[in-house]
């Protein structure tokens, strides 16, 4: 199992990262890869100017280690890479990318979904939006807890 976790401030190129992931981890036994990319979303009717992600680096790393380890025991994955940004970013920019590689498509899909569902609720990142009305912290959503809890 090839597990890589990157926390970084710099923007990244989604497609370039997917290609690098395939190039560095894929062997002939691989049949499926899934890439999830989360983007800074804005509401056209009430646009945000920027999004700032605060994080707790040591705990984020520990939690993402746990989440990916758990994913790799539940699903027959060959490789996982997570890239998560922190700091200030603009609408449309990528925030997070999760990539999975597996012999089979269901494992690649479910592995990526599992990781994202747990990352949303269990990794110490906090979003603050800057908009026309000033700054505000994004509230946690009950639907994210439910998405995580279906895996229990």
């Amino acid at each position, binding site marked *: 199992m090839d597990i890589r976790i990157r926390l970084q401030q710099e923007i990244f190129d989604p497609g370039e990262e997917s290609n690098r992931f395939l190039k560095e981890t894929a062997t002939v036994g691989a049949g499926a890869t899934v890439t999830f990319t*989360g983007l800074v979303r804005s509401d056209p009717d009430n646009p945000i100017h920027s999004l700032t*992600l*605060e*994080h*707790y680096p*040591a*705990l*984020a790393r*520990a*939690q993402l280690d746990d989440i990916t380890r758990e994913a790799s025991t539940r699903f027959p994955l060959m490789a996982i890479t997570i890239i*998560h940004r922190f700091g200030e970013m603009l609408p449309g920019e990528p*925030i*997070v990318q999760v990539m999975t590689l597996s012999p089979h498509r269901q494992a690649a899909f479910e592995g990526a979904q599992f990781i*994202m569902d747990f*990352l*949303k*609720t*269990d*990794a*110490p*990142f*906090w*979003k*603050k939006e800057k908009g026309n009305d000033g700054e505000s*912290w*994004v*509230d*946690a959503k009950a639907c994210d807890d439910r998405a995580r809890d279906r895996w229990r």
Partner: protein
Amino acid sequence: MKILYFAWLRERLNKSDETVSPPDEVKTIDQLMDWMSARDEGFELAFANRKLIRTALDEKIVGHDTPLDGAQTVAFFPPMTGG
């Protein structure tokens, strides 16, 4: 014992960390919050609704009833909103 604050807790308290020396009878995270609330009104207000507070001991997320048990770092933060 080092205390860390994140997100709106950090903003409301106007500090990202502090060092405290609670007395020996403070044995759990709940008791630590009680003790800090008693000595600091700002803390008391920010921590009024404890259901909104998540906690980690030495880089491990734990419940409020967890014993401090010699932990070096206690972190307080709101529910997480990453991804």
